[in-house]
């Protein structure tokens, strides 16, 4: 526990250092944020277009789809901000700077995510948060504490699952060189997948999303429970709460693979 606290503290300092460093390039930061804001408006516009033309998508009303879109979006953006810096590992391996992390008494993953933290990614978080707030107000749901908790838990679990997948896919960099494309097809692809009711997907993809890459538990299953939709594959209602368990499993798997990756690195050194 003390070890974890020390790692978190070192991580926080590294993030602070990175923000101070990036502040020297504040024009670039502002331009990027403006770009993000534009992209965000375009995104919202696209959602608006969907609603204008489709009253219901696979039995879901427009607002319900937006809610789903936003919960998945918040989870994804959290992971994008906090964990996606791990994909920079490929560059550090190539430049040999990854070894610098390994001679310090803090876990390499903490150092990597702290060093490569980018505050500007917060732009990607703002959009789904705003959309989620609007959707929550518009939805005809009685917000009991349990339901609020369910949303909070699934947001965090979702972020952990996306984060875990990021670590898993980035670990490939230790064995091959160019990996970002593979990693992105899982993470960004996964974010696309969870943004719509999976009922619009074919049965095969649906099974994949629920059971194999368990992204459905990020937002879809909790949304089904909250909005009184039928559960896919006749799963019990309780499946809506599987998020934390799935997140734990994904994170444990990611940790094991990351450690194996480091072990591999330390035996080949290349």
């Amino acid at each position: 526990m003390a070890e974890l606290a020390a790692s978190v503290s070192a991580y926080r300092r590294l993030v602070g250092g990175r923000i101070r460093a990036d502040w020297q390039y504040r024009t670039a930061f502002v331009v990027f944020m403006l770009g993000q804001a534009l992209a965000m408006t375009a995104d919202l516009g696209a959602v608006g277009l969907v609603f204008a033309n489709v009253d219901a998508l696979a039995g879901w009303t427009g607002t319900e789809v937006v809610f789903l879109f936003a919960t998945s979006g918040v989870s994804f953006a959290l992971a994008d901000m906090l964990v996606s810096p791990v994909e920079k590992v490929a560059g550090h391996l190539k430049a040999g700077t990854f070894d610098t992390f390994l001679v310090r008494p803090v876990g390499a993953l903490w150092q990597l995510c702290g060093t490569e933290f980018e505050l500007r990614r917060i732009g990607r978080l703002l959009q789904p948060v705003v959309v989620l707030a609007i959707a929550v107000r518009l939805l005809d749901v009685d917000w009991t504490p349990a339901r609020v908790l369910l949303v909070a838990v699934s947001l965090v679990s979702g972020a952990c699952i996306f984060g875990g997948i990021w670590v898993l896919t980035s670990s490939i960099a230790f064995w091959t060189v160019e990996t970002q494309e593979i990693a992105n097809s899982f993470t960004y692809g996964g974010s696309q997948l969870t943004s719509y009711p999976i009922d619009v997907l074919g049965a095969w993809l649906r099974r994949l999303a629920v059971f194999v890459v368990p992204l459905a538990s990020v937002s879809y299953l909790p949304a089904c429970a909250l909005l009184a939709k039928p559960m896919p594959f006749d799963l019990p209602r309780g499946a809506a709460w599987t998020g934390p368990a799935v997140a734990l499993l994904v994170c444990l798997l990611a940790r094991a693979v990351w450690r194996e990756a480091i072990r591999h690195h330390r035996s080949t050194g290349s």
Partner: protein
Amino acid sequence: MTSSPLISLTDVAKSFTVYERAGRVRRRRRTVHAVDHVSFRVEAGSTVGYIGPNGAGKSTTIKMLIGILVPTSGEVRVGGLDPSRDRVTVARRIGVVFGQRSQLWWDLPLRDSFDLLRHIYRVPAARHAATLEELIERLDLGAFLTTPVRQLSLGQRMRGELVAALLHEPPILFLDEPTIGLDLVSKEVVRSFLAELNRDRGTTVLLTTHDLVDVERLCQRLLVIDRGRVIEDSTVDDVKARYGTERTLVVDLVEPRGPLEVPGATVVRTDGPRQWLRFARDAHTAASLLAEVTATAAVRDVTIEEPAIDDVVRRIYATAPR
């Protein structure tokens, strides 16, 4: 001092499998023995120069000592610990400087890098302040503490790297080519700092280098590695005495003339009135040789050159079994 050495390698080997292209698609597997059964010990407080040609296995050895690489076989101990198993504990006891890559934060002032390292190594604030103050003074960093690292000259940056590696007061310092690319003044700053560090704090220093002046100025002991094997391990003086058996007498003649013919010596170079005569240390004294020279020609001035360590090491490589 205890009998167990601070650093020890026992029969350590490290081999890599590399794949070479053989034809369009086929690849050929080849095993490279980067470090081939190396054993040596380093006592606390000593300074050791680890030298060898490129690809000899120097960096691989250092990487095994600092826990970045796990040896294929053999035993590595640093402060009694196995660096590949107790990486984090060992990390607190060692300082590492890579001459070719920085551990400083490029876009931050030097001072901020030092502060981040304080949190990474969890050094108490008061302790950190005292150590930092001393290091800043010794390395004369005060003038550029607030300059972003990317704007520092290589010499300034290397001084910063030394501070970064020593803030947690490690008893052992590993340096991989610390003077590479530095100008003469910066090299000298680095060398005298390391010599002081060893003398005043008793810090054990192991460094790899291609600049043998580093070794001559800093190291009591010389380890020469070639093709993954240690081919020489002794004190710098001893190596010079054994391999540097030839000295050079430099004479400035009054009149330029053809190469002198003196028994027991050969003229290796002439430059106007100046001639260089090489002779064996055990066969002649400089005085007897000089007497022979003055018998043939009028001499204005004379100096004696001791063997340069470069020549010594060149001879070690040359005599190594292939």
